[in-house]
């Protein structure tokens, strides 16, 4: 943890996670960067979460109900259908984006022993 070695076979040979050394690593830069990018992603996704559910489904439901699509008043549709679809997509996007972030920063987990079972 204290230094990043330019390892050639990092993928297969990554050691299993163990408790980190007690001393704080000297290069804290990547940690700050990783964490702030994680927080940024989180804030964006939570903003969408709030706008779709509480915005479209509760606060703006009455004006949106003036638009009717396939028999559904739009506000009603967001409150009972659309928001749920968006929630599912948000979690999938989060999981995919975090996969990318983890591997960019080299903190993704070795999958080998779990997948073997």
């Amino acid at each position: 943890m204290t230094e990043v070695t330019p390892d050639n076979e990092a993928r297969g040979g990554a050691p299993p996670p163990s408790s980190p050394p007690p001393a704080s690593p000297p290069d804290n830069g990547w940690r700050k960067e990783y964490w702030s990018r994680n927080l940024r992603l989180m804030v964006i996704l939570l903003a969408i979460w709030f706008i779709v559910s509480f915005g479209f489904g509760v606060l703006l439901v009455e004006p949106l109900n003036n638009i009717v699509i396939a028999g559904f008043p739009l506000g009603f549709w967001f409150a009972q259908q659309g928001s749920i679809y968006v929630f599912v997509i948000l979690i999938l996007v989060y999981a995919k984006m975090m996969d990318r972030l983890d591997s960019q920063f080299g903190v993704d987990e070795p999958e080998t022993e779990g997948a073997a079972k």
Partner: protein
Amino acid sequence: MTDIQLWTLIFIGASFAVYLYIAWRSRVKETAGFYVAGQGIPTIANGAAVAADWMSAASFISMAGLIAFLGSDGSIYLMGWTGGYVLLALLIAPYLRKWGKFTVPEFVGDRYSEMVRTIAAVAAIIISFTYVVGQMRGGGIVFSRFLGLDVTGGVIVAAVIIGLYAVLGGMKGITWTQVAQYTVLIVAYLIPAVAVAQQMTGIPIPQVSFGQILDELNAISAQMGLAQFTDAFAARPQIDVFLVTMSLMIGTAGLPHVIVRFYTTKSVRGARYSAFWALFFIALLYTTAPAVGAFTKLNLLQGVNGVSADALPAWVNNWAATGLVTVGDGVTTISSVSNSPASGADLVVNNDILVLASPEIAGLPAPIVGLVAAGGLAAAMSTAAGLLLVISSSFSHDLYFRRVKRDSTDAQRLLAGRIAMGLAVLIAIYAGINPPAFVAQVVAFAFGLAAASFFPVIVLGIFWKRCNATGAAAGMITGMLFTASYMIYTLPVFGTEANPHILDISPEGIGTIGAIVNFVVTIVVSKMTAPPPAEISEMVENIRYPSERRAVTAGNTPA
């Protein structure tokens, strides 16, 4: 025995045989230990197990019925019980998985102090217990209808079966049993919904086709003196819709029996994808529920409107035996329908029967009715098993072992856990027979308490290193007390008087305010007292990164 009773017994018997077989199989295979089992479970199966664990009798039996009568405002349950998974996936599950112990009281115990652990264990027991009551009631309604008992007898039968099941099969192999239960409950929910959608609109996708009947439903509702189905805020004021939805969402993210499931995934990445699969499986039922509510309500109203009281459809008499459907005294022709006995309507239909009765109301064949009953029981049992495990582990591990007898043996702790479970079942029978409200509402109270106690201290514990034990203890206690006091103030539970709502806030919505109180108290008290020790900060720092950092070569993007 009628056709319906016969088919019900066949489906319930067959599904129980499958659950018991799985429980027995996994026990044989699993000598290595209790928690290790979880590590080998694929993410998608874990997601299905979370979905079964979490979708209770309230989701399966009550929710569509509530939506039928609430109309547009039924969205509080639809959004509230799904949106929380976004919070869980983004704010809680991956971090608690990285930290890697087994109960919520254990996390707050390590993060804060023993004192906070004890408060959390007590809160976990109260919340899970409130929630179990809803399951007993739901299971009781199923047995009452299909065994020809009254609701009291049905609740007792359901409680005995759920209790036995949790003690015997619940300890091991619970995940695979829940996968089977998810399969039973989703099939049982979707088949009648698809059949009704096809029958009424010619489009077999309920999510799409219930748009076709909304105009017709609004028209007949207006004719019978009910609110229009698509009108927002007919049942609750806007502020209350907002607060109840928020309370259910943050309550979902703070429920101990849900959080505990993410420890069984094999990695932090697995926890994220488990949350995705769980919500995906939940959404299958949740997007169907409003369609079931709308179709059933239209069928119901069309079937009874203007019909003379002695020529009502067969389902009315079938369900009248349970006492959950009543025709008003001296009524000759049905011209009004309600879900409230106090309304004085010609026909009173309890919310909790609509899903179970929907195949009968739509005139579907007996096997489908039996299948729905088996699905309702699967929903109640899978949730009750998870809840009873939380009650028993919080009591034996976090209270008895930590507080009463530190040198207790495994056998003593197991016994303490079983006694706690048994007591919970007994009290739940009493509360299930005399419920303070409808099943979904009973459950909503559990969410309010979880929102006001766990969610703030868990989130602050992960995202704010400065948060300390004194703050967390003060926040949890004030949040819980505030929320519980308002619930007791506004509801005629425990023999207290029901007072009017303050500022249009219902007891289901107060959890949101309780959570804000908890956040504020925790932050203010933490700021005023000493920061937590360095090793705690180190622990918080470490749960933020999924694993040790290893080398990354520039330009080499791993799959």
